[in-house]
């Protein structure tokens, strides 16, 4: 009686409708996974185009203008449309299960958050077909973004605004879910590490996204509605954008990397068969990193000219982040120390993560040395650094998490053999691509160049880097093959396919029934499922309540329509400035009307959900907690 099995019995139209209207966090997780995965591939193709262009000096594979579009879209897509949604996929799939909840706090908003992200991402990528993509870099610094012709930057600002609203909603939703929906006994200090990192990352989203929202509004207003925030000759100031962007942008790094830490924490514990070493230290380090994340944004602006005092303060503050991060690394090392290490695919990613992320971390400290950063900033050194952090930290976590949680999400096991091949190809390719780029930066190569003149000492290193990228692409292709083969074979697995699961999600079937827990569990400690297993409890759970009626929310198409309305409105706003067409203003109004109308409909219509009756639950499972 799994939801996928149910879906297979339905026709395509019914399945599609089911996913368009679903408010079930597990299905929304799949939506995030599929669309995030799609954008990941798009961003990956863009990355390959970049490396092809830069493989040899004076290459003319793509033109300068197109290169800037590809480079901008690669960054924007990977950060906003791939990494974050993929993390949301795992948060949605796992966090409610880990805390013993039947759903998130706001199932309707969960769906709305997804559809906003989706329509924002689609809108942004439609720029390729409508006159050209944004070309001012993913940071879209104001003077260039204002000067950029065409509608590319408009697509960037409006698309990110829509998907950013979705992200903010998702962040609030996870915060409330974790605050209010924990099962009895699930105290804060018993929460699994992935739940903790999701909690902190969501708090960062809540406080970091509004500055981006405001910055993007300024950009939209300047470009489309005659405002002068960044128009220097009208008294504007472009440095405001840099501040706003990085006040968002630096916490954004932690929004990505903290959940990645969470995934790795789960993997280390499971595949070392050992409790996380220094759990409480890990929790406090996470909180501290989140807090520091807001104090250091100006280290992205050391060369902007903020003055020696500002640079010195932000330099030292930035270095301080190394301390809690180091605490985490050592606690993970001590988790595997004395454990019983199984080299399963997820664990390979986690073990690969440690040296990769340490390398990314130490170059981060080097860049915190402000005077040294004057040399490193905007060179290939920084390109190497942030790819070590984002790929070596976040992407490895996403791939590891994909192998780890695939059975829980889909009820089948990805091939271990292909998984290990994927890891080997990807890991080798990653280091081959990016390690050498540190040196390119030190040898004077600026970043974001569409080509370079030969014989400046960069030719060989660039070629090596491009060859490495091909290995990463092969790794991803292997992964896709693995996914297809696994889905075709469709061999079902049980509750705890890795056999050493420690947290509640492994105590229930894979995939879980749509109501998650027939009876709400009683949590008896950190790693509650492990405790029950060690005590020999065959059900894997102690229950906090007898079987009773379960209240479930109704599906709704309104989130889809609401997001589609903003999508339509964005086209109106985008073409409004052209002034040569009559339709933009009506389209803008129509889109906003659709959105506001569906909000009103949501408000006017009582949505009280429905109940699954006790009798049906008993009929279905045989015995409580059935396998």
């Amino acid at each position, binding site marked *: 009686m799994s939801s996928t099995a149910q879906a297979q019995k339905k026709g395509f139209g019914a399945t599609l409708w089911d996913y368009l209207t679903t408010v079930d966090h597990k299905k929304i997780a799949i939506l995030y996974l599929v669309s995030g995965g799609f954008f990941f591939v798009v961003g990956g193709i863009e990355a390959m185009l970049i490396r092809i262009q830069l493989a040899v000096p004076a290459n003319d594979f793509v033109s300068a203008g197109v290169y800037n579009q590809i480079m901008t879209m690669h960054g924007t897509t990977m950060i906003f449309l791939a990494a974050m949604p993929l993390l949301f996929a795992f948060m949605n799939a796992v966090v409610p299960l880990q805390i013993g909840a039947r759903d998130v706090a706001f199932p309707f908003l969960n769906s709305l958050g997804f559809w906003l992200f989706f329509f924002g991402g689609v809108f942004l990528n439609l720029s390729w077909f409508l006159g050209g993509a944004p070309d001012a870099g993913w940071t879209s610094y104001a003077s260039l973004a204002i000067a950029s012709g065409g509608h590319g930057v408009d697509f960037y600002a409006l698309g990110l605004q829509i998907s950013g609203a979705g992200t903010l909603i998702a962040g609030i939703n996870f915060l409330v879910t974790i605050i209010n929906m924990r099962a009895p006994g699930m105290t804060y200090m018993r929460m699994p590490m992935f739940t903790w990192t999701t909690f902190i990352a969501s708090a960062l989203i809540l406080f970091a996204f509004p500055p981006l929202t405001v910055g993007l509004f300024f950009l939209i207003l300047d470009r489309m*509605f005659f405002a002068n925030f960044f128009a220097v000759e009208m008294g504007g100031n472009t440095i405001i954008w840099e501040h706003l962007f990085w006040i968002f942008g630096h916490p954004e790094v932690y929004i990505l990397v903290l959940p990645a830490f969470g995934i790795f924490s789960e993997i280390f514990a499971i595949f070392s068969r050992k409790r996380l070493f220094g759990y409480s230290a890990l929790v406090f380090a996470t909180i501290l990193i989140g807090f520091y994340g807001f104090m250091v944004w100006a280290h992205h602006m050391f060369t902007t000219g903020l003055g020696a005092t500002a640079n010195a303060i932000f330099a030292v503050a930035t270095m301080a982040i190394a301390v809690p991060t180091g605490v985490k690394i050592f606690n993970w090392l001590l988790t595997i120390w004395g454990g019983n290490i199984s080299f399963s695919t997820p664990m390979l990613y986690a073990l690969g993560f440690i040296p990769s992320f340490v390398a990314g971390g130490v170059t981060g400290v080097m860049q915190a040395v402000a005077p040294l950063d004057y040399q490193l900033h905007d060179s290939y050194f920084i390109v190497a650094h942030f790819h070590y952090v984002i790929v070596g930290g976040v992407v490895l976590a996403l791939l590891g998490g994909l192998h780890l949680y695939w059975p829980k999400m889909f009820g089948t096991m990805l091939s271990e053999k292909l998984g290990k091949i994927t890891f080997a190809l990807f890991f080798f390719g990653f280091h081959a691509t990016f390690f050498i780029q540190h040196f390119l930066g030190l040898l004077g190569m600026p970043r974001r160049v569409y080509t370079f003149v030969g014989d400046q000492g960069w030719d060989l290193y660039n070629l090596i880097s491009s060859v490495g990228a091909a290995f990463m692409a092969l790794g991803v292709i292997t992964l896709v093959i693995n996914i297809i083969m696994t889905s075709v074979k469709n061999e079902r697995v049980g509750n705890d396919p890795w056999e050493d699961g420690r947290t509640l999600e492994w105590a229930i079937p894979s995939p879980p029934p749509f109501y998650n827990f027939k009876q709400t569990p009683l949590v008896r400690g950190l790693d509650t499922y492990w405790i029950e297993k060690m005590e020999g409890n065959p059900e894997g759970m102690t229950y906090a309540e007898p079987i009773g009626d379960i209240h479930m929310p109704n599906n709704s198409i309104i989130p889809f329509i609401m997001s589609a309305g903003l999508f339509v409105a964005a086209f109106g706003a985008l073409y409004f400035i052209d002034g040569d067409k009559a339709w933009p203003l009506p389209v803008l109004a129509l889109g906003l009307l659709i959105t506001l109308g569906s909000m009103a409909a949501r408000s006017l219509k009582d949505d*009280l959900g429905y109940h699954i009756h006790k009798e049906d639950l008993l009929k279905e499972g045989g015995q409580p907690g059935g396998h």
Partner: protein
Amino acid sequence: MDINKQYSAQTWPDHPETATLEGKNKFVGFWLFLGGETVLFATLFATYLALKDKGPSGMEITASQLFELPLVFIMTMLLLTSSLTSVYAMFHMRSYNFRAMQAWMAVTVLLGAAFLGFEIYEFNHYVHEFGFTYGHSAFSSAFYTLVGTHGLHVAIGLGWFILLMIRNAKRGLNLYNASKFYTISLYWHFIDVVWVFIFTVVYLMGVVG
């Protein structure tokens, strides 16, 4: 939760807005949302302060010439009073007096609408008397965006109030809509607090310095 369940003043819970899980979620979620809104306005304030009196070279309009305190003072009083009347409405919501709640909410809406009317007049005045349009300068963009964003919040709040009042006019109070009434009043207080900052930072500091 049964939407049709009838309560009396005695059986009505002390905190009806958080009596259900949905209500609790809404309560926590909305407070968090206001946290995000605070950052949003803080950003707008910071930008305004950075761009205050900044314009093309030779621009003569400054904050101290533009703003007139009496008008803004009336607006402040209107909004502060509306915040108070929404407190009365919540008081009656908690004591299960639906008609009094609706009445106080109606007063709140009227005061808010009056505030909005004054604001529209004010903007109109700046544009026509001073030529201080949205695209006039960085200063004008920052001013209208900050104060206008607040005005937009007021407008949304009014729409929300009216929608809730009409929707529930015949149904009276229940635990399903109690949290909705509570949330809008929370929103209204937030809007009021933001205005106090706008009054201080934009208008008072503008006229003085």
